[in-house]
């Protein structure tokens, strides 16, 4: 097994580097200095780490105010509380107001495992994708996390970035350049397309290898930008591979899979499977155990793709 990395490390390292050359950059937290790995930022720039305590609505509003004052705030908190508690602030103060605030949702999906559904952030992609004028990005590995943080700092406007704590292997090479709103093709294939984001990208690549041994060549797209979606890449996948499987560490209701399905059903209907947490509160278990439980594994993804391609042969 290849080496795995916690994306929070790339997040904090990049933020400290950017802050050195751009004094507009500040970090805003809700007592989450440790869980956001921002201790180093606080040591380097004590005045620019603004800890507002356990008060997420105020934290997001303060972010909007800091942006009004010309700062570039990276507002960082555990994803379930950042999004669920402050959803109206995200809508009104950031998206509708077009405030230059960077929301960093830490430890999303089922990363908090045994802590249970209160601490899982599986609804965030659906909630935030529904809000106009808000970009939603889910980096897949530390290389992409660094790229996304740099892009967000340099690009005006509100954005939500998932920052995973679940260790993931590197899926991009050093020369990779994140482009907002553009899918990255990590593997070519003509039989089926696997569209994934975040922690699921490496698993989709592994699934493609499983499928290849069965004679099925899968295209793998890293759809890091969930909103706005790369509609052209989705249509091309539907036209050229005639079957699409999506996979995300999020509920199957309203997230990446739904976004892709909106395009597929209206532009180029082809058979689809939407993989993720199947609309339930997860049982007790570690993050790894839960991903196995919900078959968000190379074998589970490959099985869904096999179903689609087998149906196609039969029909």
């Amino acid at each position, binding site marked *: 097994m290849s080496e795995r990395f916690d994306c929070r490390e790339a997040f904090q390292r990049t933020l400290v580097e950017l802050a050195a050359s751009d004094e507009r950059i500040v970090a805003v937290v809700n007592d989450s200095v440790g869980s956001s790995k921002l201790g180093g930022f606080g040591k380097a720039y004590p005045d620019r780490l603004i800890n507002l*305590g356990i008060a997420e609505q105020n934290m997001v509003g*303060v972010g909007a*105010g800091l942006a009004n004052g*010309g700062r570039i705030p990276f507002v960082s908190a555990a994803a379930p509380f950042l999004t669920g508690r402050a959803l109206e602030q995200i809508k*009104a103060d950031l998206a509708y*107001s077009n405030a230059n605030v960077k929301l960093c949702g830490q430890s999303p999906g089922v990363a908090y495992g045994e802590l249970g559904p209160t601490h899982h952030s599986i609804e965030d992609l659906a909630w935030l994708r529904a809000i106009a004028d808000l970009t939603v990005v889910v980096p897949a590995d530390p290389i992409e996390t660094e790229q996304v943080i740099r892009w967000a700092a340099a690009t005006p406007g509100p954005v939500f970035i998932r920052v995973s704590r679940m260790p993931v292997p590197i899926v991009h090479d050093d020369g990779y350049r994140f482009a907002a709103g553009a899918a990255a093709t990590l593997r070519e294939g003509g039989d089926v397309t696997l569209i994934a984001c975040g922690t699921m990208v490496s698993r989709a690549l592994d699934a493609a290898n499983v499928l290849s041994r069965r004679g099925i060549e899968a295209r793998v797209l890293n759809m890091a930008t969930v909103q706005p979606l790369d509609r052209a890449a989705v249509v091309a996948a539907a036209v050229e591979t005639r079957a699409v499987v999506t996979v995300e560490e999020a509920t199957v209701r309203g997230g990446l899979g739904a976004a892709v399905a909106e395009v597929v059903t209206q532009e180029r209907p082809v058979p689809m499977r939407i993989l993720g947490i199947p609309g339930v509160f997860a049982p007790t278990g570690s993050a790894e155990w839960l991903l196995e439980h919900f078959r968000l594994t190379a074998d589970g993804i490959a099985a869904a793709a096999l179903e689609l391609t087998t149906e196609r042969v039969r029909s």
Partner: protein
Amino acid sequence: MTTVRTRPGLGELRSTANAIRRRNLEIIHAAGLGHTGGDLSAADILTALYFAVLEVDPAQPDAPERDRYIQSKGHASGVLYTTLAAAGFIPDSLLDAYMAPGSALNGHPDRKRVPGVETNTGPLGHGLPVAVGTAIAAKLDRSRRRTFVLCGDGELQEGSNWEAIMAAAHHGLDNLVLIVDRNRLQQGARTEDTNGLDPLDAKLAAFGWSVREIDGNDIPALLEVFDAVPFSAARPSAVIANTIKGRGVSFMEDRVEWHHKVPTAEELDRALRELSA
């Protein structure tokens, strides 16, 4: 800001406040929509701020060193737009399109379309957290610019305000001024009969703010209190502005139904005559 401005006399400010009230009622009548009572209760506060206190320049509405005025009670957009027009931020003719289809003047302000609006408000409990952010930003910049935020009193039932009130005191934001439009009425009833706020002064003081209470429809009192901020070093300042909802029109004053009742042509006529007297 470098602009040095002579402060208008009291007579002129009172006249401006009533002119704003008249125009405000005209646009509500024309739109067939509006928050009449809460517009009128705040008219003197906005007049004092825009014509005698705030360092803002309509020719440079985004000047980095401007004072910030954040109106958390976004539903009182009528008085905000009318004041912004009187102060030269938007043309008076634009007011005729208040809430018209496609208009820049939505029922709640949109900063992307209206110069002088700092943040989009409407859902209650949003302005004060943003104001804490603008005040922290000024501190980081070591700037003397100030933030004034106007909240409705009923709005203080939203918990997000109390998160912000704690944070403002913790961060020693003596460049932040909270003005509470204390007209004692919310949409459906009196605040004290709904979810009581009193003793509001003691609550704010207990949270670490310096508090003063004034007649919020008395322009000299407003000028005196705004000239006195910050009331204490290293503490945020709160002004409990005791106002009368519907102030200036006898049949609207302190009447809960005028929260968002729209005057008929005959009522508008009577109101305009009272406000011209």
